[in-house]
């Protein structure tokens, strides 16, 4: 019946998942300093450490305020709510004239948090000198590892081929000896001599038809299985890296400047699309950052052209907008429904899990091969090629869903209902966790409708 089939399939998949899990090393999160984390989540969208952006640079900003004649503690008041600070401190009032925008209020940040942020900022070296060396090293490392992997695989294949050839030579040699012996011992050499190698093979096969039949069957089946296995592992779009109208460096934005992915891809928590940022989002920062004198100034000019921004003088919008036509990198077929918010907001999946570490990606975006994704710390390790269905459901089979922890009314209710069927619940918990699969993550209509 269909049910038992599916359950059997489930069993197999779970076995595979268990083996996979056992091979995983323990997850080891790198401890981010609190200051860095806070800077990236709260400040990095407007501020940079060493350069003025939408907001002024923050490197040694406390010293700047102190030397500028600001009142003691005024800077903390400013971060909590700049208006109160500006009202009481003339220096802060002067700072509030910064254009283009006023600063958001962060009433939640305590004095020690702000100090932690600024301590971290002050400890940062100037990226203008530090960055290129680091980037180059990463790239070289990645390339080196890739070559190693291919070489190893190649050598194994070579051994198999050599062994196969030796095996055939041995068989033919032994066969020849046997043939000669037969001819020598035969009473009627004439009849025997007529037999060619082929005929002899046929007669031998006929005599041992059961063994030959079974062996052939095994060989044919394993060939078919092998063929399909190899089909499954074809990465249809892995490594796809189309050229883009603007050479956008993710490492500079997300890496060096520490801008949160969600600042630009802001519908990722709300919608099925992560969203390619509209040009007005780019202009939030690039009104100031025009890259003058840098090799990439031309790329930023393209943004101005798209936004209809005339940067000369104080700058103004001309109203002549030309949308940017990007080439989509991660393209799913029309019959697949994928929702970013489901994975990011509900599942709590990091962007890295599927897109790789964009903070080090210094060329146009590409579909990262699964081996690259597996190298990233904290990622669930998968085997199927990126963006294939196997890859999706492998992850659905591995990812744990936290049930009944009182954090989500939805999952608490599901947990309450699930507990009613004790046998099923125990079966689900055999591997110690409830996975997405067990909550319907492998059902067709999860993604196909």
């Amino acid at each position, binding site marked *: *019946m*269909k*049910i038992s*089939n*599916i359950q059997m399939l489930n069993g197999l998949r779970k076995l595979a998942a268990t083996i996979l899990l056992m091979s995983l090393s323990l997850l080891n999160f790198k401890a981010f300093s609190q200051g860095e984390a806070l800077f990236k989540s709260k400040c990095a969208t407007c501020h940079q450490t060493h350069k003025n952006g939408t907001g002024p640079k923050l490197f040694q900003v406390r010293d700047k305020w102190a030397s500028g004649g600001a009142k003691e503690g005024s800077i903390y008041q400013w971060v909590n709510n700049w208006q109160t600070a500006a009202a009481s401190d003339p220096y802060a009032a002067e700072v509030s004239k910064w254009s283009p925008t006023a600063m958001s209020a962060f009433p939640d940040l305590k004095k020690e948090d702000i100090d932690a942020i600024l301590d971290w900022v002050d400890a940062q070296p100037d990226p203008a000198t530090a960055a290129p060396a680091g980037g180059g090293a990463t790239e070289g490392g990645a390339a080196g590892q890739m070559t190693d992997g291919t070489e190893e695989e190649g050598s194994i294949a070579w051994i198999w081929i050599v062994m196969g050839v030796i095996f055939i030579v041995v068989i033919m040699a032994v066969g020849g000896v046997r043939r000669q012996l037969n001819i020598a011992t035969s009473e009627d050499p004439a009849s025997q001599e007529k037999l060619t190698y082929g005929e002899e093979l046929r007669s031998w096969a006929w005599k041992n038809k059961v063994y030959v039949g079974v062996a052939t069957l095994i060989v044919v089946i394993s060939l078919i299985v092998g063929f399909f296995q190899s089909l499954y592992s074809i990465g*249809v*779009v892995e490594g*796809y890296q*189309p050229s883009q109208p603007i050479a956008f460096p993710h490492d500079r934005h997300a890496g060096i400047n520490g801008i949160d992915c969600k600042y630009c891809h802001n*519908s990722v928590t*709300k*919608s*099925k*699309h992560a*969203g390619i*940022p*509209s*040009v*007005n*989002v780019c202009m939030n920062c690039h009104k100031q950052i025009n890259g003058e004198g840098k090799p990439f100034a031309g790329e930023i000019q393209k943004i101005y052209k*798209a*936004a*209809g921004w005339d940067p000369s003088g104080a700058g103004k919008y001309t109203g002549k*907008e*030309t*949308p*940017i*036509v*990007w*080439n*989509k990198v991660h*393209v799913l*077929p*029309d*019959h697949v*429904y994928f*929702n970013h*918010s*489901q994975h990011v*907001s*509900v599942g709590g999946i990091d962007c890295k899990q599927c897109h790789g570490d964009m903070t080090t990606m210094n060329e146009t975006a590409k579909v990262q091969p699964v081996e690259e994704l597996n190298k990233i710390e904290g990622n669930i390790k998968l085997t199927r090629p990126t963006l294939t269905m196997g890859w999706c459901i492998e992850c659905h089979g591995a990812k744990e869903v936290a049930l009944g922890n009182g*954090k*989500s*009314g*939805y*999952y608490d*209710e*599901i947990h309450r*209902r*699930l507990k*009613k*069927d004790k046998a*099923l619940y125990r079966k689900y918990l055999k591997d110690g966790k409830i996975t997405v699969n067990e909550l*319907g993550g492998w*059902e*067709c*209509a*999860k993604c*196909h*409708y």
Partner: protein
Amino acid sequence: MGITKKYWKGLEELKETPEFIKHKEQEFPHQQTIEDFLADEKLNETSTARRDFLKFLGFSVAAATLAACEAPVTKAVPYVVKPENVTPGMPTWYASTYYDGVSYASILVKTREGRPIYIKGNKDFGFTKGAVNPQIIASVLGLYDSERVTGPTTKGNLTSWSKVDDAISADLKKAKDVVLLTNSIISPSMKRAIDEMALSLNGEGGTVFSHVTYDAVSYSAIREANFKNFGAPLIPSYDFSKAKTIVSVDADFLSSWLLPTEFTKQFGERRNPDGEWMSKLIHFESVMSVTGSNADYRGMIKPSEQAAVLAYILKGLGGSTSVASNLKDSAKKAADEAIASLKKSRKESLVVCGSNNVGLQILTNKINNLLNTYGTTIDMNNSVELFQAQDSKVEKLVNKIIAGKGPDVLLMYGVNPVYTLPNGAEFAKALKGIKTSVSFASHADETAALATYICPDHHALESWGDFKAKQSEYAIAQPTIRPLHNTASALESLLVWNGKRARGGKDSAVAYDYIKETFATLYPTSDFAYTTHNSCIASTVAPLTLAFKDAAVNGLPASGDVEVVVYQKSAIGTGIHANNPWLQEMPDPITKVTWDNYITMNPIEMVDGGFVTTYDQENGLNLATITVGNKSLTLPVYPLPGQALKTVGVALGYGRGANGEKIGKAAYQTKEYGGYVENENGKPTPIGGNAFLFTSFSNDTIQYSAVAKIEKAEGIYPIAATQIHHTVMGRHSIVRETTLDIFTHKDKEAYNPAHTLQRLNKDLEHEEAPVSEFDLWDAHPVEKIGHRWGMTIDLSSCIGCGSCLIACQSENNVPVVGKDEVRRGREMHWLRIDRYFASDEESTVGTRKDKNTFSYDKAELAAENPKVVHMPLMCHHCNHAPCETVCPVAATTHSNEGLNQMAYNRCIGTRYCANNCPYKVRRFNWFNYPSYKKFTEVNPAQDDLGRMVLNPDVTVRTRGVMEKCSLCVQRIQATKLSAKKDGRTVGDGEFATACSDSCPTNAIIVGDWNDLRSMVRTSSEDKRSYQVLEEIGVKPNIWYKVKVRNENNKELDKLQVVEESAHHGGSHGEKKAHH
């Protein structure tokens, strides 16, 4: 045992004709040589011509080569400046109002990335309370019609607004006589603009400006009768939810009469037998209508007998009139029932009449006055502002124009007189003689094509508007998309021509500002933005002091041997949306015919007249010619049980574009392999015939029935119906119904018995056990855990209007297949509404009279005046789905949430599943509908504009796969996701399928069955709930509820009794409740 009989396959074999002997040996006759075959000129008409084959071959090779090289590049273009309230991938909903001159409703419009894609009723605001009809739901497709006029035209050539404005303004200044001919204007702003125009024009150099209101289907007689009886020419508000007895004389208030969107909701409220009380509907009519099919008692009358019915009831209630009151048969029975029932309910009654004859409306008023219903079910204070036409004025104007004494300038808004006037042809000729004629039409239709200028108005979804459909409410329509074409609001055009405003261009705010001004005068203390958000605001109703005074009844309709009635179908109405392929393909609620109008006739008369009464894929229907005076129309004759004898019916709204005007691609007949059927002039042939020909001005009103002659004509016409058999053939397990009396007084076992099977118990004795206890399969784990999505459909509430079907089509990207494919039974609708008649062999639908004498042949011939049941049917999402077990590739599987899932990409199209489905709800995708030439005219997905209506969350299925109702799984997933994101449980009623969303009577309830307190759980456990074909044990997730009629049915009383002993013969679980 030897076989002595001779068997033969045909008479030829029996007689051993020479031809038979010659061909006997040839299994594949070689009558045509290959050369002949290839030389056949019709070959390229066939579906795989040689060249097509080569094309496919070449393409496959090329595609395979290309596919192996690299993936195609997909572009992504983000906004330059993203609007604040748009999140790509998330729908944005706007509250708005729909009004097209006939239908009115408060609506919600769903937009995706700025494109309106779906319309549903607004359940929170507006007096229509969320009710919509198929036309309103389908109107979203009209926005993307590629044949709309894209800008202002002069004599058919596109020009600029400035040129048109200059020319028309100059003409207006020069003109002596200006006439504005419109449909009923219910917009306070538009009225203000017209008044301003009248004021400034009338002042100038002796110009006479007049505004004439013309409704193609007029309610002029109600206003005239109320003027005579009360001194106020108004249409009152009717409240069907307060009426215990409803008597309707040819008023199809559930589908076309006056304000069906409001009335269906009211009617639906009182059709629940579990409620405090259930209303009783007594309906008199000639053609079986949606209302008639829902009547508890139905009288069949000729249109000329309406007076007699009203007089009979009036006299029966103690009133007096000189009008004759001779009735017979079904009419007398129904009228007697009406009198008895009215006497009981007195002022909690409502009598309505659908005729546009003043005398009949006065008679109706007299009955209502006698019953004292004014103040309870009829509210004279809160008048309905729709249908303001005064037919006598229209007649005068039309006669003047035809006589060549027309105005200098004729402005036409929302009207199509060339099509809708009985003398449209003469009007068309005269229109050419008018110096300046201006049309605001969206298409170069019958009238606009002849006008000097077309100044196209925005589509309703592109423009601002305000409406006052009733005294009690002011409503606003807001645009949901930037205008697609270079069109302009008609309100703005009037203001510009009057010199009050300057043109605003593409993003004009002229109409918006003007409506805001109107709003500010009407509601100085209310917020416009907040009102727009709700779409409407209540307004105070000034009480009137009206006293009833008697009036003379005269000018009643003439009678004749055969009378013809023109009526509106629920999909096509008056023909405004005749170019909408969704509506053309919507099966009519009663006849189930698509893509045509026809003559309806009682099958009994058809047999006598020598017409065929059966039709199918190969066999069409006979043609006949109806003649009224000197006008005639030849159409196929459709056998409609329940049609009054000696009457015939023809639907309005067909025969649009008789001269091949550009009114929309789907408005014409198409050939078998695409392209239009062309007439002798090389113009496309319209669909059906224009029945407005049979209307007439008489006694100062437009009449919709006439004395006619009918003659059989030569020829057979193919007809495309989705249901060609009529009755349920006594199968008790499909439709169940009972009477209110039985329902209230007897046990569930009497009217809704459980299916049982016999089994051996422990003591090896036979016992009856419910079907649910027999199982071949392992139980699917849907019972308790997680969600289990289910649905209940109340057959008592379902009126068969077809809103669900169109909503489903809109939501799920269901392709339109055209008449030829429907005829082959290949319609793609995921949801169908089965309509069953009760024949003489069944005392009521689905109940066998007598097991021993029951005859299927007789059952198929439905009764003269049958009972009707409407039954929406979609995928039942069986927990033991027979389709799933036969799929060789596991393309259809079961989810743990009780859904029968369909993975299109896995499907290889064996169609085993459809073959094994007991409900026949699976649809095979035969063609590449979005690209094959056969569907170019009909399928909106073949058009760059039309494609914009597609729901981006639902796959457009390709050729060769099976598809079916998914229970709107995209909405299930969206609802779950929204709950997960908020960290809360899924609320009851939060998830709604398109069908349940659009049902005006709330007959369809969906929800999570595992939520013990949910509406669907409660409803499914009701004593009226049953499952269709429960006895075959497929365990569906859909329940139906027994239809309850508020009638007396002695046959049924005898049949539906609780049996004393458990002695049943049927081993198939067909336990019958009869002896």
